[in-house]
């Protein structure tokens, strides 16, 4: 749930700013208001903004950002915020209309994924769309922290955002190294992934894994695999001797479980945090914890 006082504060700033006829700038130069679409971007923004502003997150923890529909209050916060941090690349499908119309009303929306050298989905034809799951690569998120600092600098130049972002970027690059060290336990011939949705492309590219199969084709939540696709996937899993299918905490694992059972071998379905941070106590409350938790689960499943 959202913190009511945070929302009240941001709405107060919105109305104040609207009253002054200048919605782009905060009236108190020391406090910036940031609205982030996902919990992951919210964590990034909170880390950089710290006590110098308020960060609101739109899509709650554990929810799938594809299906989210905003309330009027949240759209008001989007229009009035100093900065709206979105992922872009069609991740926030339910919000794209709202974000576009808010841009028309003067909102400052940054779709950060577009600046992080996005790559196409792995499991699809060459003409397919770009994969939005950029946050699963810590080195890309280190770049995102630096871009965010530049954006915040344009809003409140009196605060030293860059040293904070540099510190966080260094942490993320250390995590990147830590994950690489963790994954060293997985021998080269076992570096193959079968995933529920096509969400692990950046991870695979960064750490030298091969995605040999995806249970649900395309990116749509309504898409269904054909029986030929499922049969081919089952055969591929058996051939490669893959011990696990990696699913998402935000989506149903029914089909993945069925595929795992169909192989007739000991294949487990392992849930990874992909679309959202975990609830408190899950070990995935921050971007860094989430990436490390995912890496540990992958190591445990494959080695």
């Amino acid at each position, binding site marked *: 749930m959202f913190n009511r006082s945070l929302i009240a504060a941001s709405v107060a700033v919105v109305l104040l700013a609207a009253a002054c006829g200048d919605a782009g700038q905060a009236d108190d130069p020391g406090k910036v208001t940031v609205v982030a679409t996902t919990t992951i971007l919210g964590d990034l923004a909170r880390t950089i903004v710290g006590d110098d502003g308020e960060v609101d997150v739109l899509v709650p923890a554990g929810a799938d950002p*594809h299906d989210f529909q905003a309330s009027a*209050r949240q759209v008001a916060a989007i229009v009035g915020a100093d900065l709206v941090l979105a992922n872009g690349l069609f991740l926030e499908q339910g919000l794209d209309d709202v974000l*576009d119309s808010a841009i028309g009303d003067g909102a400052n929306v940054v779709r950060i994924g577009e600046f992080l050298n996005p790559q196409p989905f792995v499991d699809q*034809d060459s003409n397919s769309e770009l994969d939005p799951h950029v946050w699963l690569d810590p080195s890309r998120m280190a770049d995102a922290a630096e871009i965010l600092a530049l954006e915040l600098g344009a809003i409140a130049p009196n605060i030293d955002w860059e040293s904070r972002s540099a510190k966080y970027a260094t942490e993320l690059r250390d995590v990147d190294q830590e994950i690489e060290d963790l994954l060293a336990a997985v021998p080269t011939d076992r570096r193959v992934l079968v995933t529920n949705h096509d969400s692990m492309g950046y991870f695979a590219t960064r750490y030298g894994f091969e995605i040999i199969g995806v249970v649900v084709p395309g*990116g749509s939540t309504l898409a269904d695999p054909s029986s030929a696709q499922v049969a081919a996937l089952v055969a591929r899993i058996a051939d490669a001797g893959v011990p696990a299918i990696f699913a998402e905490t935000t989506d149903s694992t029914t089909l993945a479980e069925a595929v795992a059972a169909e192989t007739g071998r000991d294949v487990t379905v392992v849930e990874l945090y992909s679309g959202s941070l975990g609830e408190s106590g899950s070990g995935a409350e921050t971007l860094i914890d989430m990436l490390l938790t995912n890496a540990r689960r992958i190591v445990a499943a494959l080695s």
Partner: protein
Amino acid sequence: MEWLLEPFELAFQQRALLAGSLAAIALAVIGTWVIIRGMTFLGDALVHGVIPGIALAVLLDFNVLIGAALAAVVMIAGINLVHRQTSFSEDTAIGLLFVGMLTLGVILISRTASFTGSLTTILFGDALGVTASDVATTAVMAVVVVAGSALLHRPFLVLAFNEQKASLLGLRPGAAHTALLVLVTLAIVGSSQTIGTLLVFGLLVGPPATAALLVRRVPIMMLTSAAIGVASVIIGLIISYHADTSGSATMAITPVALFFAVLAITSIRKSRQAAVAS
């Protein structure tokens, strides 16, 4: 008073109010006929039945309204064929075409990599995200639907209450039925594109059903229903703003809640009258 007006100081709320009200008026007028003629299921089926047409339009890059119209023509032709050639009631025909068209849409979408995310959010709009040009589109749709319904009021009325008499009067019930279907499709597809399917349904069924509980004459029913529809949009936007609930869904649930409130009041009144009479 401030509490009621504050939500509408924001530009996106004003656009949602405008597009929502225009759609509410068109849907109230056409929804009155839908309720009287018992075509609610057809309305539901039409929204989902146009999905393969829209998907094809997105894939092959032509206007989505043309895609939707093509799919609607195929669907209505199919329903009429089943209805004429078999002894099944019309809901069987609608059900067959509904599931047939929707699954065709899923097959098309599953074959292509260019769709990510949820189907309805790609193919349909959100009331809080409407642009000025969306408002203009909705206005054109509303004018055509209301004018069409006014011009064809007599044939629709006779069709609704006495289909046999319609042919005796030379009012061609078949043509009137087709014209009504065209207007229903236009109202549903035209407003789904801007304000989303859920809200379109809420406004198509809720206000006319509520009006039918209160008044009997068709033009009065349409006016009452339009007033309830516009009120639902306003109430929904105020609640969504203050209670922090999803915009389109809140506007859509309001007329349904109003229906049950009115139903409760009218049944209490009826049972009191019955008690007094006995």
